[in-house]
């Protein structure tokens, strides 16, 4: 799951990035509205954490641009503006959620989880397929009730595949979802992670669509 964090404050931005990384998100962090606009144009994210008072371009303007393009990306506004008028303005500009500073890291993570599963078209708080259950809240995976030890990247990949159950995920989509800027992707790492997942969850759990990508569930 790749998330864009737009926050001009160095200390807070650094904190949010670290906090979301702890939850195995791939995090891109930009510090002004213009950079946010460009990032949103160039990359597919699963969610965006957006501050409002930004240099160069206001957060609300960034949000309106995004919605004007018809982009349905889940956006959570994270701001110090806490009046209900501000919240109404933010939500009506197209935000999906609104959180005021200071906030709890756990709450931010939970809200992002909710936004992401909603955007994937499900209301279930956990993903389930063929006896494998993935709980985003605890980042635990079980197979037939038995816990499965799984690395951060493997978890992120599995989460992506399971939340898009029965749908084809291309290599490019998966790589974009897995790696933030500046994180090296070697050409065969995706295959390595898929291999690990199959070893832990069963060879048939992830099916390969040759030359295109991977899929969990659905016709093979």
């Amino acid at each position, binding site marked *: 799951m790749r998330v864009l964090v737009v926050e001009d*404050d160095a*200390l807070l931005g*650094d904190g949010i990035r*670290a906090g979301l990384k702890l939850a195995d998100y791939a995090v891109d962090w930009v510090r002004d509205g213009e950079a946010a606009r460009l990032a949103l144009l160039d990359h597919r994210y699963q969610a965006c954490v957006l501050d409002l008072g930004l*240099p160069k371009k206001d957060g609300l303007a960034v949000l309106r641009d995004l919605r004007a393009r018809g982009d349905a990306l889940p956006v959570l506004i994270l*701001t*110090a503006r806490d009046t209900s008028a501000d919240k109404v303005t933010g939500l009506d500009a197209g935000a999906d959620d609104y959180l005021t*500073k200071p906030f709890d890291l756990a709450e931010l993570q939970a809200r992002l989880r909710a936004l992401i599963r909603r955007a994937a078209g499900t209301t279930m708080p956990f993903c389930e397929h063929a006896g494998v259950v993935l709980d985003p809240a605890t980042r635990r995976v079980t197979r037939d009730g038995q816990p499965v030890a799984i690395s951060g990247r493997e978890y992120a990949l599995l989460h992506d595949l399971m939340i898009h159950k029965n749908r084809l995920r291309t290599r490019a989509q998966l790589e974009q979802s897995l790696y933030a800027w500046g994180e090296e992707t070697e050409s065969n790492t995706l295959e390595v992670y898929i291999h690990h997942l199959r070893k832990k969850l069963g060879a048939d759990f992830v099916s390969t669509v040759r030359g295109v990508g991977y899929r969990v569930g659905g016709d093979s």
Partner: protein
Amino acid sequence: MADAPRRRRPASLRRRILRLVTLSTILTWGLATALGYRQALVDVQELMDGQMAETARVLLAQAQHSSNHLTDLPADMASMRGTKARRGELALEFQIFRSGGSVLMRSARAPALPLDGGLGYADVAEGGTDWRSLTLETADGALRVQVAHPARSRNKEALEIASNAALPSALLLPPMLALIYFSVRRGLKPLDDLAADVASRSPENLAALPAETAPREAQSLVKALNRLLDRLTAALDNERRFTADAAHELRTPLAALKVQAQIALATRDPQQQGHALAQVLVGADRATRLVEQLLRLARLDPIVRLPDPRQLDLAEVARASADEAGSAAADKTLRLVVPEEPVAVSGDPDLLGVAVRNLIDNALRYTPPGATVTVSAGLEHGEPLLAVTDDGPGVPTEELQCLGERFYRGREASAEGNGLGLAIVHRVAELHGARLEVENVEGGGFAARLRWAQRAEAPD
């Protein structure tokens, strides 16, 4: 208790108008009645004089014609003495006498009028009564007739006529006053509406009052109120912006502190934990600085003038501030340019030091590594000057005027700052009677100057 001042009720426009109109109405009515009485007096006089003349001529003719039968006359003339029962008839008395003076005949209640009174009309006082009399004589002058009636009855008559005219309008007075009362109430209703309109305004609704529906007399009031509402709106907007900015500046470092602390607790990676804890310290420092700046501003705000100004040397202030900031310069060069001789102004060296350090801070903060920051003091055109100049990228022109607003940070600003520094400098300058000038330097860089203007300011 006796000394307790009585609260004065504010003057009511409605009462005032009511009182004035009522008084005027009553006064006008009274005047009309008085004039009517006067006119009635004149009219009654003419009427009575006419009747007297008629009677006198008849008597004279009678007396001349048949002086033998004069004895019968008083009886004949009895009807001339009007009775109460017959209004309009005059209580006429008469006497007939020879020109020599001997009375031939007189009515029973005739007064003992002086006979030497001349011919024609006369007002005579006799026996405690005022009389109106007419004396005529025959063509040969042998006989004279004098007819008289008491002036009292004439006044009574006039009064009666006048009151007959005044009474109906007196009866009309109360309904008229009631009408006036309702008219005034109704006429002043637009004012009540306006008051209700003003009363409905609140911080949430400061919309301008509708000038077109207000009465013309209230137009200037409405316009003044609208101007006030405008200023109030601006002030409130300003306040809201300040609060929003302050909220942002205060909450963001707290949010950062909290997140970093939570990461330090959550992570199992010692390196990440160390980083997060170091960030907590940075955040605490920043929050401390913010609080200090806010307190400084809060303390400066209520001061009208410097509590204890004294002669000081700006060169010394510049030198001390530069020394203090030297360690923070790190990868930048801090230069000091001051003259040999002191640059004297009156003021508070500590506050000026705070101002200069804020300016140096800003310069160091907003310039790239390798930049040179120059602190200088001196005289320019005889005006004391304290300046901090850098050779950085400068400030976008459209943002220059926003500098010094609290919490304003440049749109391009990515460096840490709380937007209070220049606000503090601005306030210190104000207290010193100095001007804070901010501008981009030709050839790149930004300059902030505190300038003590000469008393007589020359136009540019």
